[in-house]
């Protein structure tokens, strides 16, 4: 066997990091281009139909829209490299500040949803998958299919009707920052998210566990007489977990997009609602900034997910 100077793992991680940065760069390019090719002038859109030409020109100048596109792009990149995402046209607050103010709320309920979903999916996926009992698997698939097929805003509305309007277990809308007071407002969105995530994650885990179950090394483990706990971890869960991890890291990114709907329905002042507000107000620096933020997070999350999966199960290619 040939001994290489750098370990293959370090080389692969280096390669993937470079790739993540280059994808992030393209995310920025696309966000920049999207804001320029969308019809209408951002300045006149912002100021409304009755605005005077001078005001529009002044705003255009302020936004740097009078420079040629190439120069604009250079300016944009140099701003970004300094961590400068621009300032809101509505409030004059910097986009970075808007994100740091609104993102923690979104992060809180996304993180809790994923944590709970993961903890619930593992026993479900492992036990139904390991038993491989046709009737259980069938009922499980039916139930999760229904959940997945139902639009999440519909589930949210039914939940609000049931828990908030009929029983008053959760406020219909509003928010109050600070733990644990915020949980009163957050538990329902978290529960809905968890339900949807469990349906997807446990299905993937179940499928992997069923595959693992029939593998020969499991037989070897039984015959070797491995203890129950070791068997559960090394012979069932660990070999089955990689696809689930990859899926979760990918879904955390896409979940950011879904926050728009839930935050609107529950009137939570998170980053999703901020994005909707910015779009409606034609506040293009905010829209652009949030999109870049989402994009970069998604890219790095999926990188981390792939890395974790690879460390867990070397059969997964990095």
């Amino acid at each position, binding site marked *: 066997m040939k001994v290489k100077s750098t370990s293959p793992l370090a080389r692969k991680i280096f390669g993937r990091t470079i790739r993540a940065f280059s994808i992030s760069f393209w995310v920025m390019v696309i966000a920049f281009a999207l804001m320029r090719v969308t019809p209408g002038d951002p300045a006149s859109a912002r100021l409304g139909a009755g605005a005077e030409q001078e005001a529009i020109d002044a705003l255009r100048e302020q936004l740097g829209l009078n420079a040629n596109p190439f120069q604009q792009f250079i300016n944009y990149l140099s701003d970004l490299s300094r961590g400068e995402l621009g300032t809101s046209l509505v409030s004059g607050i910097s986009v970075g500040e808007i994100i740091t103010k609104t993102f923690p709320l979104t992060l809180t309920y996304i993180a809790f949803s994923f944590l709970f979903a993961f903890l619930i999916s593992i026993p479900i996926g492992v036990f139904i998958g390991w038993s491989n009992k046709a009737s259980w698997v069938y009922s499980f698939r039916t139930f999760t299919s229904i959940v997945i097929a139902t639009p999440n805003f519909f589930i949210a509305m039914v939940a609000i009707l049931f828990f908030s309007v009929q029983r008053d277990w959760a406020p219909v809308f509003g928010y109050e920052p600070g733990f644990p007071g915020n949980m009163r407002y957050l538990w329902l969105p978290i529960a809905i998210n968890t339900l949807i995530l469990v349906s997807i994650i446990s299905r993937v885990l179940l499928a992997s566990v069923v595959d693992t179950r029939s593998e020969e090394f499991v*037989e*070897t*483990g*039984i*015959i*070797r*007489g491995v203890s129950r706990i070791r068997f559960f971890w090394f012979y069932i869960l660990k070999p089955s977990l990689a696809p689930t991890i990859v899926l979760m890291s990918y879904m955390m990114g896409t979940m950011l997009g879904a926050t728009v709907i839930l935050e609107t329905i529950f009137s939570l002042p998170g980053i999703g609602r901020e994005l909707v507000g910015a779009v409606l107000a034609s506040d293009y620096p905010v829209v652009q900034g949030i999109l870049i933020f989402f994009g970069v997070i998604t890219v790095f999350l999926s990188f981390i997910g792939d890395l974790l999966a690879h460390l867990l199960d*070397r059969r997964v290619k990095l």
Partner: protein
Amino acid sequence: MSNVLAKIQDIRIDVRVTRRLRLRIVDTASLTIQKGQLLGLIGESGSGKTMLCRALVGTLNRRGAYVHSGSIDFEGIDLVKASKKDWRNIRGHKIGYIPQSALAGPNPVMRIGAQLAEAITQGGRKSKEEVRRRSIELLELVQIRRPEVVLKQYPYELSGGMKQRVMIACAIAQNPKLIVADEPTTGLDVTVQAEIMELLRNIRKEFDTSIILVSHDLQLINSVCDDIVVMHAGATIEKVPSSKVTAALHPYTHALYDSRIDLVEPRGKLRTIKGQPPSVGKWPTGCRFADRCDFVKDVCRSTDPTPFVQVNDSQWSACIRHKEIYGGAK
């Protein structure tokens, strides 16, 4: 007969297909394994040889199969009725197992060192240093070079032959009395196969371990094993020392032997066994080899198959007409 290590007696194995439907996959198989014997078990796919192995290592249940009747006596314990506690004392300690596919045998998410440690510490806790010393000793025993490096590797970093050596090292970690090797060289190269067989023979010699070698390759079994047990359609139909395989007492054994391609001139007439082996669940009544047998008579189809019987001091046959066909015991 204190020399007997394990005795499988008239075993029948069923598999649950649906809630009501049961399929018999092994129907009257018997085997005796002497201490220190290298026993070859041969049969085509669907003959039940793998299920018989699973009964020996107690993993039938996983495949939805169970022993219908019969017994497996292993050092005074009936493995068919063995409790979980009995199995805990047997698995890994007294019976080692080398899996069918070398490529899927080792656990892909564990380092080789961890898997060996698992096998080594079955007998009770051992210090890290002890485990490491024993691991290296075992890897050296199965002729793996640079064992310190291999301990830190994952299975995907090893070749097929190396993986199978590791599996053998795990199987012999507790000095088991019996090793069940289920087609251990399928998918491996011929040169690697020869090395693995050499290794198994050495282990047998050095530790006086009994080995059951399962294969569909008569040529291989014949060259390595002391005794050969032939399975056909769920039944053991012949037991013969490999030195006397040309004087076998069942037409199927002869047919298998005669269909070897190394016996004829290039592109010469092969003596193939006609037709297909009877598939599980569609076994004919009477002798299950009747449709493919050159010596078949009506009586073969009408007499229920009987378990094989001892014909002379070394041979057993299930053919009811072996005397007529082969002129009786020699």
